């Protein structure tokens, strides 16, 4: 049931999605990010890509696990805080970010089904927007097995055809929100499908970064663990969290008790994003830090994505969005790093 949505009918579709929280790209303070679309509003679908990745709809930067309270001499009282969010639709998800979500799903379900992640994830519907052209000179989705119109991880894929969108539901969640749109849509005709094909083919011809041999990277990384190149490549690194926090697949977290009141003792146990580039990430309680320098941390970031994740989940944990390259304050470039240390 592929559909056509005239651009002037977008707000009509949105208005029929009552009961859903709707988010979409918005340009504010000089950056694209997702923002709530208020009733009667429309998301801006002429965006490049958002700076903050879509992962935070299921894995927010701060998640409260439970609240605790204890009177002096009394028993501690714990209150569960599993989120119970409204169904949420996110518009304008780029196909690279769409591919990130099934990878995150593996992490939060492989050995243990994380109730906090899945409480949000199960309510989440991702409406993708195919890229007409690479939005940055650092795009490399095709080099890691994706494409500017990949459906992987998306519930709906929209393709911009100038005055209208081609709308293709992919999952049951996608079918549901398109069915809600009713007469906002027209049926897609064979001519529309030909045009979509042409748009997708054209997008694939846009200039992208490339990797010489994706399949060979994991073994090459295993070989180059002790390579002196790591030190050289990490020389300009300042050890900030830009690359990992903005990464759509980085999922490491820290857990802390945040005390808000001493008497009675009150507080929350919270999970926050953590970052393998920070000095305290691998610090032991003894004070010893096995990953003591930036070269070891860069190697960890790259190896996790292209070696350990491949070992564990049979796919790379990188979708080629290019954020870590474009936003790195000192030009550390994951494609260049792989081409330097991880080619057979």
């Amino acid at each position, binding site marked *: 049931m592929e559909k056509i949505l005239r651009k002037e009918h977008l707000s009509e579709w949105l208005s029929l999605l009552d009961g859903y929280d709707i988010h979409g790209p918005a*340009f504010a*303070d*000089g*950056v*694209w*990010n997702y923002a709530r679309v208020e009733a009667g509003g429309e998301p801006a679908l*002429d*965006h*490049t*890509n958002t*700076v*903050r990745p879509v992962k935070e709809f299921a894995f927010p*930067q*701060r998640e409260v696990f439970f609240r605790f309270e204890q009177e002096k001499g009394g028993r501690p009282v714990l209150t569960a805080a599993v989120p119970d969010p409204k169904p949420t639709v996110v518009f304008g998800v780029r196909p690279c970010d769409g591919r990130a979500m099934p990878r995150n799903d593996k992490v939060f379900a492989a050995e243990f089904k994380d109730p906090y992640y899945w409480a949000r994830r199960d309510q989440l519907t991702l409406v993708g927007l195919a890229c007409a*052209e*690479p*939005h*940055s*000179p*650092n795009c490399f989705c095709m080099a890691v097995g994706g494409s500017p119109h990949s459906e992987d991880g998306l519930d709906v894929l929209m393709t911009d055809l100038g005055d209208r969108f081609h709308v293709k539901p992919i999952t049951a969640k996608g079918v549901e929100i398109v069915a809600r749109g009713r007469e906002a849509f027209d049926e897609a005709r064979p001519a529309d499908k030909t045009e979509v094909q042409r748009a997708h083919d054209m997008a694939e011809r846009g200039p992208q970064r490339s990797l010489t041999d994706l399949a060979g990277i994991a073994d090459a990384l295993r070989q180059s663990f002790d390579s002196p190149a790591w030190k050289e490549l990490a*020389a*300009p690194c*300042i*050890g*900030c*969290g*830009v690359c990992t*926090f*903005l990464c759509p697949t980085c999922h490491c977290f*820290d857990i*802390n*008790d*945040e005390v808000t009141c001493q008497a009675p003792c009150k507080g929350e146990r*919270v999970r*926050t994003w*953590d*970052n393998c580039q*920070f*000095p*305290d990430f691998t*610090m032991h*309680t*003894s*004070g010893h830090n096995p990953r003591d320098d930036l070269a070891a941390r860069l190697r960890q970031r790259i190896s996790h994505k292209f070696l350990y994740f491949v070992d564990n989940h049979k796919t790379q944990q990188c979708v080629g969005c290019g954020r870590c*390259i*474009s*936003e*790195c*304050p*000192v*030009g*550390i*470039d994951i*494609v*260049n790093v792989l081409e330097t240390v991880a080619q057979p």
Partner: protein
Amino acid sequence: MVKIEELQAYAAELLEKGQVKGVLGYRRGTAGPWVEPCTVTAAADTASLTWDPTCVNNLALYLVKDKKAQAASKTPDKRPLAIVAKGCDSRAVAVLLQENYFKRDEVVVIGVSCEGSGVVDKRKLSEKLKGKTPARIEFAGDDGFKVAVGKSETMIPAAEILADRCLECRAPSPTVSDKLFGEVVQERSYAAPFAAAQAAEAASEEERWAQWQHHFDRCLRCFACRSVCPMCYCPECVVDSTTIVITPQTTAEDKANRIRWCERSATPADSAVYHLTRAMHLAGRCVDCGECERVCPVNIPLRLLNTKLEKEAFEMFEYQAGQDAGQASLMSSFRDEDPNGFIR
């Protein structure tokens, strides 16, 4: 004009004669239009050194990094480092000298004059291009900058995309240098010192606080602003959880109850604590290289916080950080005529 061949030859000469162990400079990167910082250690490699309006980084940071590395090394290499420094970067070197972070003979400053121009501001460019990352930026003389995005090229007038710090620059020629490239230009056609801070002061206190809350609310706490700052050289930062010295006698309780000046959660309150602490620690020390603002992935106008304090230092004490390496630093000196109305 800075003749890059002459700068390269000078760098090669320093390395050939063994006067320095390396030259901190800029070279063309692989990640889009911006240069990347590099350390050249062989005379033959100096041909890669470059100089243009995308040389945004303040390389003084790497003098600090090297000092720390040598202090931690069992076999320290104490030979001096050479650094390519713009006006603002040289002020950072001057402050580090004032604060005795290293001695004058430990650094060779290769000064470059911005000659009435400056560097391009990523944030302004992003506003102009609505989030698109250009592939190339070229200085095109009086006409401004030629910016290539995808297949198209746009001319943008210099005043529209030069960094604010360049528009407000009070000393575009290095204050410390062993050898200077380019012409000394003291007066600038754009110059308007503290213009942005002055403009911000026009708003009421309530409006300003609302603005900063809005900004802190989107802080990711990636700490890129701190990590890139050459003045943030503390071995341990108050915001890291590595600030407790652990001995075999440290109990689990001590570790759990360590002072946490700001929590890991990126809440607006904790982010305000972080940014305001940093701003206060930079009072009278910030050289306005604008790096904190440049590296912020969500465009928080951090430079405003710091220039506000520099404005205070200038108006109250006629002090400008980094203007004179021989002068005592603001916080370590006292003059009879200093305003003291706050002592009662």
